[in-house]
């Protein structure tokens, strides 16, 4: 699987909703993710950012609406994606073996696995941990290992759910460097984050969510200069939003008005 394979993007969400335990957690989510960018999904706690990511990646099924990989044309989009979670999940084996395991799931030949794994460890600066048990590495090192594992899979789309929320600034910096490397290699990156500074550093595009709805989607430059949505404005200023409904919550957000409804 290489990036040279026909792309599965763009990813289109069409009126996606998700309910669990009788509560609607995602409501009428509609947007399109085009190739070549890095999108940060931001918003207060409970906005549904992590859920949205999992709906995109296919870990959960929407209760309503559709998640469509428009470029896939009948192919299975899953092998072309990878996801990194807030807490890295490593098997009880060496760092190299963890990467080789992921490669074996993708059907990569045994001879090639070792090579690809070594390369991925080099790229992420983890060469000296190749034979170490993955679980004795520090939090930051394990997260970089998770990224190395994703790198080895050469995904077209990389999802990251709060990848640095549990890490110290130095580890955060290393992780962001690697994410930037993915971006530079052409991988479509979609990440959620609490860290507005991180969003500013990494994102080309910002999606703002509140109480399960996508309220705004705009190029990062524009968004951070001054968002259109009032709640987004308040969020950027650091205000708490949980009790506010917003001034104009019946009109569809701007990104849905100007873009063609798919």
């Amino acid at each position: 699987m290489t990036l040279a394979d026909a792309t599965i993007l763009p990813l289109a969400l069409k009126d996606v909703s998700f309910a669990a335990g009788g509560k609607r957690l995602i409501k009428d989510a509609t947007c399109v993710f085009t190739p070549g960018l890095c999108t940060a999904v931001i918003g207060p706690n409970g906005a549904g950012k992590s859920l949205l990511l999992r709906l995109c990646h296919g870990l959960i099924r929407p209760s309503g609406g559709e998640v469509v990989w428009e470029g896939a044309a009948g192919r299975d989009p899953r092998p072309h994606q990878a996801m990194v979670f807030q807490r890295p999940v490593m098997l009880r084996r060496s760092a190299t073996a963890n990467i080789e395991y992921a490669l074996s799931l993708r059907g990569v030949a045994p001879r090639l696995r070792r090579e690809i794994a070594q390369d991925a460890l080099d790229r992420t600066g983890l060469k000296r941990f190749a034979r170490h048990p993955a679980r004795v590495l520090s939090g930051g090192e394990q997260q970089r290992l998770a990224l190395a594992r994703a790198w080895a899979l050469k995904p077209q789309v990389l999802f990251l759910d709060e990848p640095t929320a549990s890490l110290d600034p130095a580890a955060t910096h290393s992780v962001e460097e690697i994410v930037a490397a993915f971006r530079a290699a052409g991988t479509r990156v979609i990440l959620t984050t609490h860290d507005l500074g991180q969003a500013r550093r990494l994102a080309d595009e910002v999606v703002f969510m509140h109480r399960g709805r996508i309220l705004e989607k705009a190029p990062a430059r524009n968004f951070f200069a001054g968002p259109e949505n009032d709640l987004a404005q308040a969020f950027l200023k650091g205000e708490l939003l949980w009790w506010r409904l917003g001034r104009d919550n019946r009109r569809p957000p701007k990104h849905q008005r100007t873009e063609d409804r798919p």
Partner: protein
Amino acid sequence: MDGAGTALTDAFGLIARFDGDLVEIVALSLKVSLTAVGLAALIGMPLGAALALFRFPGRHSLVVLVNAFMGLPPVVVGLVVYLLLSRAGPLGTFGLLFTPTAMIVAQTILILPIIAALTRQTIADLWREYEEQLRSLGAGPGRAVFTLLWDGRFSLTTAVLAGFGRASAEVGAVMIVGGNIDHATRVMTTAIALEVSKGDLALALALGLLLILLSTAINGAAYLIREIAARRHG
């Protein structure tokens, strides 16, 4: 308790002499119980893992049943296996009654639920931790069975040791299906029962102590292996 004092000296005497009969009995005990544990693990571990990972109708009832069967009375298992293997029973033609094979069958049935139930719990806990990442990487429940069994190997050894403990300590099942035949199907527990019935309590106690010593040795070895491996693989 002067019976205990004699018992200790008798026990050491027996071991030191490498009493021929005793060696035969100990060897058979180990053979029967270890083989039973091996078979029960081979069947019970994938079974327990599947119970943890797959959803199907009646799953909850099956889990309750497996848990309940952890407490199967050995003598009942012995009786059922006897009725199956008896010449007058459905599997009589194989002539397995009163052989070590019958004893292995009975003990395997006895400890299968223990291993399956403990495996199920361990794997269910692991799956909770690993599920999203494994599914993201493309490993569904089917592929995950063996990945998780290997990853949970340290916790699973405890399940295996629990099974071995139950097997090596039971007397009801092997007595009925084995017949406690001298030089053929006599194991430590049935030998102890025999000596008690003869009134030779000191010898019975000595054999009992020996059994406990053996069990301790095996558990100690397992613990050591686990510690060394854990240090190596984290």
